[in-house]
């Protein structure tokens, strides 16, 4: 059950000066990224990928990237509370009551509760991960190609349905991601696919180039449209530590948020955003004063902030035990592991125990570091908001361009990245979510390999996916999930149609 020896080994790894330093840097960077609106953790991890390749050991690179990921969850609340501008997507809900608390002169209490809730939930998430990951990895050893194919199908479907606004657009992006994953050398037959005579495309598309283009360049171009709208912070934070009454009122919200976040975070696509939304809804329902929600209820800050941190920790479980990343940030970490020659999956705990337990232990330490960074040092993060984006945008662009060149020392990669950046920009403008594309790009090779190996096992008969019980169950869940969502969409359309009918009866004259 609880692998105490493994965890001790992990602390030995995490406590080395180098890993401690990178854990601190990761937490600092993560908090900064969370505080600054515009640049998300996925984009930052993408920017760090080239640098991580120059790091000596893989565990150090993963400690750094994990720190950025869960650190961003801590920092995201700051701008939500002070500016009503979410630092990253998972803190959108915090804007509602956090900002109202700030307007009522209780910014300090809101920031304090968010930090304490994040710490509690982050620690609960890591404890859950410590206990659940080894048995799950053990169970995953029984998975063969049909099971892996069905698991990737289910994972991708859940991720596309749960992350974005439109399931259709999410599915389109996932299919494009899978197609991009096919470009280059076919790993099974050695055939070259979709190279169109370009030699550089004969080796597969590089993940770093794709990720930095879509998330780095695309994000910068998109944010340039909005630049100038950012408001400088003038709020003075009087008292950062919440009162005992505040803590008493928010303690159950933190507990519930931690549990919800942990459970939702394990689901592919569940992640931090969904968990914070679910937590807010639960808190509103559980509260004795639901009328206070939206006007500065402290539970509306404590619950979602706890949930998104617990989800950030638990989303590492499917990544490290099954080799299935659940969101864009963990997809980046997945790629980083592959770059370092480590295949995430059930064998990771046995074959690279130092990496697995080192990362887990660093998360315990990281949560303590983040509590220190986010409580007494909150003033520094608020000052960071004063740095003009005008100077940050070209710096990020330079880091992206030079970083992508340094991966393969290839100027061609710069052109590919720019092309991807333009595609990412247009996709964002048309409200296509980029997460499923990246996730599918990572999962594509696993899915194709499993599909073809399974078909080889069954002499080309597709019934192998339904005769294997685990595979059949996973595909059954996927089918039920799609049917349920189709029914929901159908009902929504019908309701919208019914709502629009009176307007159709009396059409407005339109000027051509």
């Amino acid at each position, binding site marked *: 059950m609880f692998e105490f020896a493994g965890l001790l080994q992990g602390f030995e790894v995490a406590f080395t000066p180098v890993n401690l330093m990178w854990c601190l840097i990761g937490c600092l960077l993560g908090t900064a990224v969370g505080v600054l609106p515009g640049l998300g953790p996925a984009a930052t991890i993408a920017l760090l990928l080239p640098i991580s390749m120059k790091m000596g050991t893989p565990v150090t690179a993963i400690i750094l990237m994990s720190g950025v990921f869960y650190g961003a969850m801590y920092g995201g609340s700051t701008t939500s509370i002070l500016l009503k501008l979410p630092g990253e997507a998972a803190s959108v809900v915090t804007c509602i009551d956090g900002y109202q608390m700030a307007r009522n002169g209780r910014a300090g209490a809101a920031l304090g509760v968010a930090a304490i809730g994040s710490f509690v939930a982050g620690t609960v998430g890591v404890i859950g991960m410590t206990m659940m990951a080894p048995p799950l990895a053990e169970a995953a050893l029984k998975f063969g190609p049909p099971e892996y194919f069905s698991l990737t199908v289910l994972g991708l479907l859940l991720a596309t349905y749960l992350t974005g606004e439109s399931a259709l657009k999410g599915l*389109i992006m996932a299919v494009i991601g899978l197609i991009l994953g096919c470009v280059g050398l076919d790993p099974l*037959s050695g055939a070259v*696919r979709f190279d169109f005579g370009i030699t550089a495309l004969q080796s597969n598309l590089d993940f770093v180039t794709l990720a930095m283009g879509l998330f780095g360049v695309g994000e910068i171009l998109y944010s*340039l449209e909005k630049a100038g709208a950012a408001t400088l912070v003038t709020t003075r934070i009087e008292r950062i530590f919440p009162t005992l009454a505040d803590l008493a009122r928010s303690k159950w919200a933190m507990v519930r948020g931690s549990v919800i976040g942990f459970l939702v975070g394990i689901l592919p696509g569940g992640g931090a955003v969904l968990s914070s939304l679910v937590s807010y809804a639960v808190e509103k329902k559980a509260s004795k004063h639901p009328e206070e929600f939206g006007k500065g209820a402290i539970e509306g800050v404590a619950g979602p902030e706890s949930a998104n941190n617990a989800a950030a920790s638990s989303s590492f479980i499917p990544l490290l035990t099954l080799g299935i990343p659940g969101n864009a940030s963990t997809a980046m970490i997945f790629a980083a592991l592959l770059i370092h020659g480590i295949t995430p999956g059930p064998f990771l705990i046995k074959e690279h125990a130092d990496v697995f337990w080192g990362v887990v232990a660093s998360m315990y330490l990281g949560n303590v570091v983040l509590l220190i960074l986010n409580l007494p040092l909150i003033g520094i993060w608020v000052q960071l908001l004063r740095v003009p984006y005008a100077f940050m945008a070209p710096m990020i662009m*330079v880091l992206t*361009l030079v970083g992508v060149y340094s991966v393969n020392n290839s100027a061609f990669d710069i052109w590919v990245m720019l092309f991807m950046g333009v595609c990412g920009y247009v996709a964002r403008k048309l409200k296509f979510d980029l997460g499923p594309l990246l996730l599918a790009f990572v999962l594509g090779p696993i899915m194709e390999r499993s599909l073809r190996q399974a078909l080889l096992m069954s002499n080309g008969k597709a019934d192998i996916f339904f005769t294997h019980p685990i595979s059949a169950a996973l595909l059954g869940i996927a089918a039920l999930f799609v049917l349920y969502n189709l029914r929901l969409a159908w009902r929504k359309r019908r309701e919208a149609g019914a709502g629009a009918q009176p307007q159709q009866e009396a059409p407005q004259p339109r000027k051509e």
Partner: protein
Amino acid sequence: MKSWQRYAGVFLLALAGVVIQQSFWVLRLFDHGQPGSGLMPFGLGVILAVLAVILIATNLGTDAAPEPFWEPKAWVRPLLALAITVLFAWLFDDVGAITSVVVLVACWLFLVERKGALVSAGTAAATGLVVWLVFERFLQTPFPRGLLF
């Protein structure tokens, strides 16, 4: 935005057509009775085509409240930034990495962000120095040599 979604659908349909054509005619769906390298892309192409048709079909008609692709003049800054970045990529091999970085930052600050010439030049020089220190000295990245560095 509906018309733009339809354009996106048409583009995706064309993309699906290319994928299907390549998978079916250039690659093989089955090789000696076993799944070939074109099987999965072919399936994906078909799915993409179906999804593209649904995207077009669900965006027929006009918006109740039309939303432009770009707000007035909102395209200027991204397009200018993109042009400067393309210039960077074009100069990179011939002029050298560090010089290109300096040119990129200076042009960006001066043209996109409308900063003064001195601030732009100073920041660009400082960025070039940091990139040289971090990437060339610390990370030992073999940058292309150019006219100046």
